[in-house]
């Protein structure tokens, strides 16, 4: 009989159960990660930090973004058709959020506001934002988020300003949530596969970053660049909704309680909102009866909530204060052209 050992084990088990689920130890500053060469603000990636692009980006108050992935040396991600690729412990996903001082002349400079990291450790993903200082020399972890006043001149020459909100660590999981587990959103086949001429995933495969890529790339479902008018309105709209809404509005996301699923592969028009009454919309209904009324964008709750800047009405609920004019136009056009199903 080995009593002291079992008591020790019992204590271990209890202690483990009472520990917080997210116990990842985050370095205090971004420079400690050694992801970018000095000076930090140039965002010049260190070796092994690889830039990537997504087909349909999330709109975040007109912020510009740059994305990087760092896989541990000698390790690769494994392809998956529908959800996030399986990535090894030590993988780091990096997203920088910045505004050009004048969008018409990017060489006038930019202001970086935050760098969001998603890190895989011991089989789980963890997320944190690092907030940049005014001098643009360093970013420090922002557990409880934060806010920064920002103004810029947009592409049309119009002055814009905003109290930019940096998400807190819990808010990361509002969106990065699949059945209550934190998961990356961009590292999926539908976001990464493309363009046709030189598929990004082929480059990953060549660089030993990716295994399991199917031979026939045509089999891979792809979102389209919703700003590219050469694609159909249908493809652009469904891609837009997938990228901007489906992280919550899917059967595995935070908004599953609503029964409204906006993922691109939802095939039931009723489930993606056509003549579907709202469930818990409150004043988010705008006095309207259905999420989408075909042919009638002005009677569609979906569009009303995209157009609103009221925190109790607007969608998405977080990471979006300024209505996305181009996205609204696209969805308006999509609903207007929709057949009476």
């Amino acid at each position, binding site marked *: 009989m080995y009593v002291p050992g079992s008591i020790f084990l019992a204590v271990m088990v209890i202690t483990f159960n009472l520990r*917080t689920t997210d116990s990842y130890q985050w370095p205090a500053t971004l420079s400690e990660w050694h992801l970018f060469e000095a000076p930090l603000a140039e965002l010049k990636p260190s070796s092994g930090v690889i830039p990537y692009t997504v087909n349909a980006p999330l709109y975040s108050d007109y912020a510009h973004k740059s994305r990087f992935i760092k896989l541990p040396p000698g390790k690769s991600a494994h392809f998956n058709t529908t959800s996030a690729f399986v990535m090894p412990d030590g993988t780091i996903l990096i997203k920088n959020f910045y505004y050009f001082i004048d969008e018409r002349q990017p060489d006038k400079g930019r202001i970086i506001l935050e760098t969001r990291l998603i890190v895989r450790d011991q089989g789980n993903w963890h997320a944190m934002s690092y907030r940049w200082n005014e001098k643009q020399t360093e970013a420090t972890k922002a557990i409880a988020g934060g806010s920064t006043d920002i103004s810029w001149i947009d592409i049309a020459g119009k002055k814009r300003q905003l109290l930019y909100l940096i998400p807190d660590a819990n808010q990361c999981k509002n969106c990065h949530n699949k059945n209550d587990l934190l998961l990356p959103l961009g590292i999926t086949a539908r976001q990464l596969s493309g363009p046709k001429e030189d598929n990004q995933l082929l480059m990953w495969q060549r660089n030993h970053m990716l295994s399991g890529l199917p031979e026939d790339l045509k089999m891979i479902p792809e979102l389209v660049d919703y700003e590219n008018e050469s694609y159909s309105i249908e493809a652009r709209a469904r891609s837009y909704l997938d990228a901007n809404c489906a992280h919550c509005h899917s059967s595995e996301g935070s908004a599953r309680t609503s029964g409204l699923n906006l993922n691109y592969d939802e095939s039931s028009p009723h489930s993606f909102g056509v003549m579907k009454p709202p469930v818990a919309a409150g004043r988010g209904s705008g006095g309207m009866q259905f999420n989408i009324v075909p042919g009638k964008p002005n009677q569609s709750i979906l569009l009303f909530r995209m157009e609103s800047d009221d925190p109790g009405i607007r969608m998405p609920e977080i990471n979006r204060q300024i209505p996305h004019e181009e996205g609204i136009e696209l969805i308006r056009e999509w609903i207007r052209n929709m057949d009476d199903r």
Partner: protein
Amino acid sequence: MFRRLYILLVFAWIPSIVFGQPEIQQAWQEEWILVEDGSTINLPEGIFHFTRTLSLEGKKKIHIKGAGMGKTILSFAGQIEGGEGIRITNSEGIRLEGFTVIDSKGDGIKAQHVNDIQFLFVEAKWSGKPDKENGAYGLYPVQCQRVLLYESKAYGASDAGLYVGQCEQVVVRKCYAEGNVAGIEIENTTHADVVENTVTGNTGGILVFDLPDLEIKKGGHVKVYKNKVIENNYKNFAPQGNIVGQVPPGTGIMVLATSDVEIYDNEITNNRTVGTAIMSYYVTEIPIKDESYNPYPSRIYVHDNTYTREKRWPILKNKFGKLFLLKFGRKVPHIIYDGIQEDISVSPSTGRLLPEYEICIYNNKEETFANIDAGNKFKGLTRDLELFRCQ
């Protein structure tokens, strides 16, 4: 009268201590993120102003303890982001106790995927008169298991004050709801006891609903007993498009499309349009696209309640109010059944609902009744209770 008293109370708070800086937001949110499982977070007395949702995520055994309802006040009047005041997700064993949340832009306190969640002496309210610009739900557990709402309150919600949606094993006890569209609403929820609550001055007092298109399809096994359901005659101020927007002002208790509901030992007093309504989803006239959804109420037992009603006209601002005026004048029956049923649920020989679908009404004080035959343009409207005696 109640409302005036409330407004006075709102003003009475103002002289107490007021905190409200971004630092409070950051400090509290950071504490809620870093808190170790098994801890208590103490909220001091005073008014604290927040600009964003406060959230708790992925925690076990956390006790968030204020100095008391109306003493610790979290104000979200200046909220610029977030669909709720407090948001609790993906957690286990959470006890919220002794504080008030006011003026959130969306819902007051939302708990989603939290097992073992307790709201004790917690209040969600909106300042001023009830208004359609207020948030939808006051206290809002959704997709939770083992839920307790005890001695908690809601005022002014533009949908339901105390709303339990898609949950299992629920007790709502000794709570108070006033000035909401629905006082208490149990929706697509199984095994809920709604007991010893007071609901007054709402549009509808207590609603037990099953709605289509939801992930958790079916509610039922709901007991509503020993409640005081008084003067729920407030105008319906829900934004159009929300299902509660259809609830007639002057409704005491309403069952919509749910099965296994027992309503007994309640005091149902001076609700001008209907004391207890038993309805199918068809009365909403919203097309049903969900094939797995059952729109009929079944196995409903209404007994041993005490109904009282002054002789007054029903409230006319609803199709039912108008219909009742036309059919009943000032003598509106206490219990109304819409009479919409499938042929297969009725015994061809007796005309009664088969036991599997039965609706039983017995032993109530002042037991007046009408089957309004809503499916046939009210042609077969009858006040005869004989078919619903179930003896």
